[in-house]
């Protein structure tokens, strides 16, 4: 190691690549996205969590994922979260880091101050008393404000998600799909147009939970379509167990094919995860899902994202990461290599 360092030092003295300022790494946007949602990383780092490669060397957590074959990151953004993590500035920091490494970026708008998922789609506190028209304005303003912040730093997301796990709509009660599909469609289209106003080439994703549940997807996207709702990509989550992953993958595969033929949409697997302790099964699950995704013709399946693989050591009590208790990757992510 030492002689190598010395040689490198000498090489440097004579290297002729003059470079003033940081590198502008280019991003390769070809091929399927092998992604990870890394939204927790800055908060984890601030709390002292560190990340190590399998050889035990401490590394930047994003760079570490990149060495494991991850080429894309997914980043959630909340409107005004209580402690600041995952607000627009925190999003910018993570997006800037990913961009510096030449990674592809998916931005995930929750339109909430905290988690938006099938159990809760709570309006941001500042939007609580708004009517539908005011909510549409707020969605447009927030979307444009966040994306403009990225654009000013030269960051261009390839995909933007309007709403998170919106199997029953978002911004409840106004945008609850089972109560008023037309409202949900209008809010989604507002988000869609706001994304395109800042990044015309970004693909807009509408993302639902339970990627194996074809009837849920048909119900929601039929409803969106009937009400003029706009989207480019149909997003899915899938969280199987070691015992049912094969069946869920098969059902998800059929659902992907149905979404593509029924709506002509692209598909993105926005979130997957499996129990951290079941790394071998998780690897098999991921490898199978990737194989199924790439087997669909015309590159209609855009990518697969593991949700928060770097969560470890009882971080927020989340147990479906892909790192072990020592902060090293499990074999699950080997499927991305």
């Amino acid at each position, binding site marked *: 190691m030492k*002689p190598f360092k010395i040689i*490198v030092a000498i*090489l440097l003295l004579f*290297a002729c690549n003059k470079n003033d300022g940081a590198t502008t790494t280019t991003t390769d946007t070809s091929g399927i996205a092998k992604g990870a949602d890394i939204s927790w990383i800055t908060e984890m780092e601030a709390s002292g969590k560190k990340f190590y490669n399998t050889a035990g060397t401490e590394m930047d957590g994003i760079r570490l994922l990149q060495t494991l074959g991850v080429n894309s990151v997914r980043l959630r953004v909340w409107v005004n979260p209580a402690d600041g993590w995952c607000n627009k500035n925190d999003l910018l920091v993570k997006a800037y880091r990913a961009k510096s490494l030449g990674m592809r970026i998916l931005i995930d708008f929750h339109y909430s101050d905290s988690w938006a998922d099938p159990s809760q789609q709570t309006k941001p506190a500042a939007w609580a008393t708004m009517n539908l028209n005011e909510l549409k304005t707020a969605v447009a303003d927030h979307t444009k404000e966040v994306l403009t912040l990225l654009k000013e730093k030269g960051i261009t997301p390839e995909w933007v998600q309007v709403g998170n796990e919106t199997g029953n709509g978002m911004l409840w009660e106004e945008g609850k799909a089972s109560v008023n599909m037309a409202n949900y469609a209008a809010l989604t289209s507002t988000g869609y147009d706001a994304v395109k106003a800042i990044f015309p080439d970004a693909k807009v994703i509408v993302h639902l939970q339970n990627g194996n549940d074809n009837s849920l997807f048909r119900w929601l996207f039929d409803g969106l379509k009937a009400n003029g709702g706009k989207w480019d990509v149909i997003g899915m989550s899938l969280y199987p167990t070691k015992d049912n992953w094969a069946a869920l993958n098969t059902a998800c595969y059929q659902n992907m094919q149905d979404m593509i033929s029924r709506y002509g949409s692209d598909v993105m697997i926005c979130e997957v995860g499996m129990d951290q302790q079941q790394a071998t099964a998780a690897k098999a699950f991921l490898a199978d899902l990737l194989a199924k995704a790439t087997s669909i013709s015309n590159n209609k399946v855009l990518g697969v994202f593991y949700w928060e693989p770097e969560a470890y050591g009882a971080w927020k009590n989340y147990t479906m990461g892909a790192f072990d208790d020592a902060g090293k990757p499990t074999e699950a992510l080997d499927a991305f290599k």
Partner: protein
Amino acid sequence: MKKIFCYIQLLALGMLLFASCKKDGSQPVLSGYVDASLTATSTQLALSQSAKDSVVLQLMWDAGKLSVSNNYAVEESLLQTTVQYALDANFSSIKKEVAVTSSSLAYTTATLNTLVLGFGLTAGETGTVYVRVKSTLTANTASKYSNTLTLNITPYAAVSDAAYLYMASTDLTSFPWKLCARNKDGKYDGFVKVDQWYNFLLTNEESNSASVIYGGYPANGNQYVLYAGSDRWNCWTANGGYLYITANTNALTWSETVVSSLSVVGDFNSWSTTATPMTYDAANKIWTATITTTSAEQWGIKVLINQSWSWFFGAGDEEGVCTLYTADNSGFPYTKVGTYTLKLDLSDPHKFKYTVE
């Protein structure tokens, strides 16, 4: 070995002088070692204790990505990056240097407040702090620096978050040692020196009428269970000597670990875990060691407990204070050159203090 290194250097030098400026030559050329570009999420920061746990400042930088031509691999740990703080734009006196592996650094209001108060900023007044990123490839090349950012920060007068438990004699007349929960989270720890079979209680005040008095749970087999009822037993240690004690008032448990040695490690002793043991001065309750250096310690120094690399005193939040770590972390600054005495005072676990005299 030295000769071999010299030979390699000469060989490399010769080869490079010959081939150095060929763009696509056959010699490997390292690129991506550049001045970092530094950005902050905010540069005007009026801090408020009411938002103490919220993230208030994030620094991010692009320090480039090292690569070598001809498909040579670059060791991931080759580039050392630190964030430097100073109160003058020339960085003539570095107030704090933080080693980082990630390419951003986040501060909550409370951590930033502690940091800048440690620099000497005054609560309630806006002070200026300069920050930049330093990248170093190897010890024998010139470091590279980012642009310097100017942060205008108004700290607040922090109300101490620390809470103490006092180790009391069983008759509650003397309180020789104390444990501290530095984050007021019910997790107390501290260092004590007691005799073998010492019996004690833990109290929340240095008073025989303390409102909370913990002893042991009154049943056999519960030596490390805390209990605050009036039928408490005493806590006791079969070990005695210099001990590290923890007490968790949420879980109602306590623990003891025998400290058999403290040893100083740094470049000066080639990071030997045994070469520089510290000596305990019972009268003054401090640990001392004599250190001879020939240059400022590049990576700082650490004080290892029981010769462990994962249980040691390293970089602290303010000058003259070190932090107890249980995982890899930086050392604390040591810039004196010559022979000096390092004194470590662990008697108040709120802040583990050190001086160099």
